[in-house]
């Protein structure tokens, strides 16, 4: 893949910030959008906009077809059996809340355990902690090693026959560590536990095959993989989705709502999958934009995306170590992680570092990255984080290191 050619598809990369060329290293927070995605959204609103499903007119059929095609495209991308296993939601956060409330609320009780890790994004902690207040189950936290990798032994010790669901990120949004999901799935399934994988930082960056991983749930966000904000995906095995209660109630998700004049109540039957979980008018153009993003990534090939990021990460780790006052957190070996590098500079807060870089047009994130427990584990008040994607180049890393040298 040629990142210089790819860059031409991203209008925003031509921008200057404080008279410097924009260097966008905040891809773990959200990615930039190629013109193919922008054009797909534009084309939808210009030529095909209508509400989906149950409309008989031409535009409604066109919109429905596009929206369904988007589900199909995503199913193919992660090797799901069919689009019935693909529920469109707002993002990873909503996907996890869907599992918590449409599965957990009905299936977890006092005495049960939900096992999460200490490297979780808050979106995979808070829904479970909230629900445990209602249902009285226990949320257990599997430890991580000092270098930020998952402690598999601790994980194995923490899992038991009380564990009903295991939740973990495939890639940590703080350290970029890639977890061995297959190994965890095997452990969990041996204990008859389901597995929910937070794929927010993995699906955009490496090939993910839900059949090969054998995960029960996979959550990810469109905006972190070139797509628009407000659209994301929950993948779940068909038989699990079929056994689950709906999440939100309303139009679209029902087949029939019949009023019984004797009981004076409505009896309701649910729509087919995946619509049973998509109540109300969905984010149609979000789906269309996501489909364009998935096609763009498929054209490049996820293996190539992974290789490019590995090259950039290895190069950045090497160059950053030339700095005297820098401390890089997490593993330094690019082969065990994705393109995320958390770091600190002695004497400066992460926000200072980010604002200094901003002066030179380099965008990085600072703070806790919604993963406070992991920062507490590392005894850090916050961290600076550079994260890469397909349009980043070695020259940008050179410039980034040059600016960091100036800060020192």
């Amino acid at each position, binding site marked *: 893949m040629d990142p210089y050619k790819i860059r031409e598809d991203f209008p925003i990369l031509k921008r200057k910030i404080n008279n410097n060329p924009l260097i966008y290293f905040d891809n773990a927070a959200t990615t930039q959008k190629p013109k193919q995605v922008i054009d797909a959204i534009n084309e939808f609103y210009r030529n095909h906009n209508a509400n989906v499903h149950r409309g008989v007119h031409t535009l409604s059929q066109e919109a429905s077809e596009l929206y369904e095609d988007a589900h199909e495209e995503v199913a193919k991308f992660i090797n799901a059996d069919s689009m019935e296993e693909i529920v469109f939601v707002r993002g990873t956060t909503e996907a996890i809340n869907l599992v918590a409330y449409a599965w957990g609320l009905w299936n977890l009780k006092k005495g049960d355990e939900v096992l999460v890790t200490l490297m979780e994004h808050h979106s995979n902690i808070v829904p479970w902690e909230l629900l445990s207040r209602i249902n009285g189950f226990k949320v257990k936290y599997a430890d991580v090693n000092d270098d930020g990798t998952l402690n598999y032994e601790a994980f194995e010790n923490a899992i038991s026959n009380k564990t009903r669901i295991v939740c973990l990120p495939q890639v940590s949004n703080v350290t970029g560590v890639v977890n061995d999901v297959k190994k965890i799935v095997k452990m969990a399934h041996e204990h008859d536990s389901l597995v929910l994988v937070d794929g927010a930082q993995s699906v955009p960056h490496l090939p993910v095959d839900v059949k090969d991983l054998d995960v029960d749930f996979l959550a990810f966000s469109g905006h972190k993989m070139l797509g628009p904000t407000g659209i994301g995906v929950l993948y779940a095995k068909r038989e699990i989705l079929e056994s689950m209660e709906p999440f939100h109630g309303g139009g679209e998700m029902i087949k029939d709502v019949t009023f019984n004049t004797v009981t004076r109540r409505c009896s309701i039957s649910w729509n087919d999958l995946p619509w049973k979980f998509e109540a109300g008018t969905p984010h149609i153009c979000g789906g269309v934009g996501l489909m364009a993003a998935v096609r763009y990534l498929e054209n490049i090939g996820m293996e190539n995306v992974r290789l490019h990021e590995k090259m950039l990460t290895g190069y950045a780790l090497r160059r950053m170590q030339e700095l005297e006052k820098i401390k890089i957190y997490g593993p330094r070996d690019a082969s065990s992680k994705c393109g995320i590098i958390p770091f600190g500079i002695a004497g400066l807060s992460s926000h*200072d570092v980010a*604002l200094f870089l901003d*002066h030179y047009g380099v965008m990085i994130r600072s703070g806790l990255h919604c993963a406070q427990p992991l920062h507490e584990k590392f005894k850090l008040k916050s961290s600076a984080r550079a994260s890469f994607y397909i349009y980043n180049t070695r020259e940008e890393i050179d410039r980034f290191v040059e600016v960091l040298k100036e800060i020192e």
Partner: protein
Amino acid sequence: MGVIEDYVARIEETCGEEKDFIVIFKYERKDEAVTKILRKAKIKKSISRIIFELTFQNFSFRLYGTGKAIFRNLKDKSELKRLLANLLS
């Protein structure tokens, strides 16, 4: 609090133990705000004239040439607003 509305676009409060306030000045008035603040506060240190470490009324904070500032160890937002009003008036 009129001067704050005149000069400040946003105030971001960071999460976690390290409670910082990041003040972002309005783009079109940032240079004016930076000049005003540099005139009022005492410069302890400057890094490449991009970051200024300043003190004012016993509080230290950092000001950026790009029109942003970080305030630490403040009690709350009203204390920040009081400081900003004094710095920008």
